[in-house]
């Protein structure tokens, strides 16, 4: 667990992880430490997967990032997380069954475009949703009722990933969403927290064009999924977590200030600056 935590901290904070960085590594004995595939708390087994491209615009930094996320759908639950992490886990399981050096894993994370975002487990059977996410060195989890979207169906249609889709609109936690769902895949699910339509949601865009999700691949699967197993997870409520995440992303330096785990430079000064990180939350209530 500590390995994964360290990986996530390096990936989320390292300035060396520039866009065109060819190399990312750490120095010291930890570089050669063997790491292994993470154990998971199996929640369900997927029968299909959908990969989404997620374009996020941060109007404050005036930057746009593109990342890929995957929805793994089982009969009772579904799991939504970063696709880089999924790919990385798959490569390690297949190619490095006996473990992988820490630095090689770091390189793999970089190549797979690993993002340390939140993971969402929808429990359809019990109408629950859990969000698991790491901020700095700690892992937080909140639970809520499966959100209710007050959808209005429209006559607009579009083709997404080869499927005929219909448009629906709803306002949810501070954003006006336009989504396209397909009745050709009769599954009540979608990316992120979306649900409640008579078909899988393949595309979603908010009215400010700050978030745009679109399916790029849909496939059958049979794979157990669930949160990474961990012994120390801090329970929290949704609003408190969102507030804390905002503080962390807008000024990580202040957020970690005082933490005994906060990294320092050789001269003892804090290694994490006060610069604002790329950030634009999907819900802002």
């Amino acid at each position, binding site marked *: 667990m500590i390995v994964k935590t360290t990986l996530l901290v390096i990936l989320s904070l390292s300035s*060396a992880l*520039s*866009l*065109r960085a*060819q*190399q990312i590594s750490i120095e010291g004995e930890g570089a050669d430490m063997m790491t292994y595939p993470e154990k998971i708390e199996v929640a369900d087994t997927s*029968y*299909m997967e959908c990969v989404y*491209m997620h*374009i996020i*615009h941060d*109007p404050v*930094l*005036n*930057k*746009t*990032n*593109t990342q890929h996320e995957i929805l793994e759908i089982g*009969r*009772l639950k579904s799991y939504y997380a970063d696709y880089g992490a999924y790919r990385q886990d798959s490569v390690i399981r297949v190619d490095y069954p006996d473990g992988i050096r820490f630095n090689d894993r770091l390189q793999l994370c970089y190549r797979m475009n690993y993002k340390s975002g939140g993971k969402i487990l929808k*429990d*359809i*059977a*019990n*109408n629950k949703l859990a969000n698991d996410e790491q901020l700095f060195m700690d892992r937080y989890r909140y639970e809520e009722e499966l959100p209710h979207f007050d959808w209005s*169906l429209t006559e607009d249609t579009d083709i997404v*990933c*080869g*499927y005929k889709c219909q448009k629906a609109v709803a306002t949810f936690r501070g954003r006006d969403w336009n989504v396209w769902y397909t*009745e*050709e*895949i*009769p*599954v*009540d*699910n979608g990316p992120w927290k979306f649900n*409640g*339509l*008579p*078909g899988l949601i393949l595309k979603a865009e908010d009215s400010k*064009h700050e978030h*745009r999700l*679109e*399916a*790029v*691949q*849909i*496939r*059958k699967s049979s794979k157990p999924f669930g949160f990474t197993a961990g012994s120390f997870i801090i329970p929290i409520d949704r609003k408190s977590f969102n507030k804390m995440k905002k503080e962390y992303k807008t000024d990580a330096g202040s957020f970690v200030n005082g933490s005994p785990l906060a990294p320092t430079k050789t001269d003892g000064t804090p290694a994490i600056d*006060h610069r*604002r990180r790329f950030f634009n939350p999907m819900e802002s209530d």
Partner: protein
Amino acid sequence: MKTISHISTAILTVILLLSAIRCHAAQWQGSGLVVDNSGEPLAGVVVKLIGPGGSTLAFSSTDGKGRFRLSTATAPAKGSVVRIAYLGFSTKEIPATELRDDMKITLDEAPLELKEVVVKVPPIKMTGDTLTYDVASFRGAADRTIEDVIKKLPGVEVNDKGTIYYNGEAINRFYIEGLDVVSGRYAIATKNISPDDIISVNVYENHQPKRVLKDIAFSDRAAINLKMKKKSMLKPVGHVTGGAGADDDGNAKWLGELFSMFVAPKMQVLVTGKGNNWGKSYTTETGNLISEFTAKSSAASTLYGDTPFGTAKIPAERYFDNTSASASVNTVRKLGEFGKLGITADYTDEDNRTVNSESISYNNGSDPDIGFNETVRSRPHSREAKLNINVEHNAPRRYISDKFTFKGHFADNRYSIFNTRDISQHSRTDDYAFTNTLDATIRTGNRVLSVKSDIAVTTTPTADLSATDAGSTMLRQKGSALSFTTDEKTGYSWMLGEYSHIGANLRFESVYDRFRSTYITETAGNASNNVSGYTLKTTIEPEYQFKPGTRFSLKVQIPVSYSALDYDNHLTSASYPAHRVDAGARIGIHGVLPLNIKASLTLGRQMTLGGIKDFILNPVYTTYRQRTTLGSGLLNEREGYSAMTNVFYKNPIHAVFITFTGLYRIGHNNRISGSTVTPGEVSTTVENSGNKSDMLNLGLNIAKNVRAWRTTFTLDTHLERLKRKVLRQKLPYTVENTSYTIHAAIRSNPVANVLEFSAEGWYRPSVQKIKSLGVRNSVNDMEGRFSASVHPVKSVELYTQLYWNHTSLASDVAKESFFIGAGIRCHIRRFDIELSSKNLTNCRTYTYSYFTDADLYTYTFNLRPIEFLATLKYTF
């Protein structure tokens, strides 16, 4: 009263009861339980109430116990059904009227069917400052090179030379897989690499090539990176082509080309070897396209042009009978994590022949016009060899680079001129340029120290011109020049707090120049020049930068310079010492406006001093009838004030790119150039007199890609106004030129890989005014280019290219030209068999006219005839 009250209460009660009954009758609810064959409840099953017309009246999904509930405001019409669907189970429909509360519905398992895996890559993807264009989304089956694809990318422009522009600015680096293998000569890559080998084109906005200056020094230029397909790496890829043909005059045509590239993570090699007489010039492939790599020149390097008797507006391949050959080797190897060694070498030989006539009418104010009419048979022959060795260490904290370049340019040009006489002219220039640039930048914490040393030696031992008239010598001129320049720069800067950056640059430049010439003429006597001297310039440039985040930056630079010059005329023993102190200014503001519009404003004042040419006081001949006196004995001083702006909007999601550029510049010059025309000669001189000029340049470029139509639209408009003084027959005139350009282009692949076309049109009206002479000349130029490609079957391509030009002058002189080319290409596995043709209308002459100042130039070129070439290309 009490009775009335009771009656009212009773009526109200009845009304309320009736209403309730009515409401109950209108609302409809249904519920059920969905289970699988084994009786297990199914969660997340989609349940819809569908009206007789197919519209969705209500929908729901089952909970963890398999239960669902549907409700509508009104009872469903007859024929409505409840559809129960779940992926992996067969869909079931039951009439809505049959749905009873808590009805158990069993779904049968069915094969889970999903459509064939669809992988979609976005055409344009943006990650931070990187735009990634997916090549497959933009390429068409007719695209032969990656340049053909780059031309279609919205926001990116490519000119005829191959220079790539993004956001209206030429790119500052070109990479393949992150490595610069071609050292600024990137047309050698873009005009040869097949789109089959490239998966995406990256544009790195605001690219700072030195990692050490990342986040410190702002760059307004972008870089391009080609991302290779995995299958095309770690093995040689390329093509070899051979072809033969003939033209309408019975001449044989041939072409042979080899291009090969090997790309590995730590090493790249790119090799070309080419030759043809089919009209293709290779100088554009091996020419440098990045301004900071431009080679130095001596005072005699460009004394004689290759085409002093006129060029045409149409591409040279239409009127040059060429024999061209070229070879190049480009390698780059990574040294460790941050180092690289790059070596490039190339040789180009261009031997051209053309015939043209020229008619020039010089306006001399009150004097009668003087003109020249002659026919010229030209044979410009130039050879060029270049070598470039670059060692670089580009680490986040340290940048060290040494770049050595050699360029040898040898021009041997012969002309036969027929007017009232029979003249032969021969010019020869041998030019060698050696340059070494050492560049080091070190960053320690918030401090940056940089040192840069440029040393260049350019020698032109031969710059000769001779002319004979019917075999007897008219003119014999010998020239030579040497230039030795050093440019040493050092800078130190540090951060002041979190947002400010302060520093100073110290620059020391030295130039030693020598120029010698002597001519003997039959009728105009003799003259010689022997001038040498130096310029020493020291500049201190304090700078300040304020960058409070990513949305705004301000940079101020105040260069203060001291120049000491001394040039000696060794023939007259005259000496021309001069000392100048000057302060310039440059203020740059970059900001991000609402709607993510990037805007910049640069204000500046520059002073530019002349050099050796100002003290070359005797004339030199540039052609048998053109004499020029380069200097007046007074140091040329040009002062300029400029304001420049760039406003850029992009929306990669909707593929819209808009760029506005503006430049206004006022210049003060202490001399005027002018010409004196006599019936036998044109003599250009410079006179010591104040000359004020002002220039305005405005440009707007809009590009939009409509993905659904596979089409990119571009609209480009440009205004240029220039006002300056010239001398004609010793009299000063103010010349005002205003020109407009409207350029619209459509590049489309509307029927995927079956039909592709591009259509471009230019409308360029321009006006030249000389008020004191009462001259107002206007030229309207229109140009259209159209190319289309059809693939009746996947492996066969039929294509055509059309070119049309119409130029009209105020004097009602209108010229029109029209060319057609066509071909057929058949693709079989790795082979391409192609039959191409040019000039199908067999148009043999091309005439065009233009005004410069008040002079009218008319040129007529003999064109290459209709010609055909059959080629076989093997791609590996």
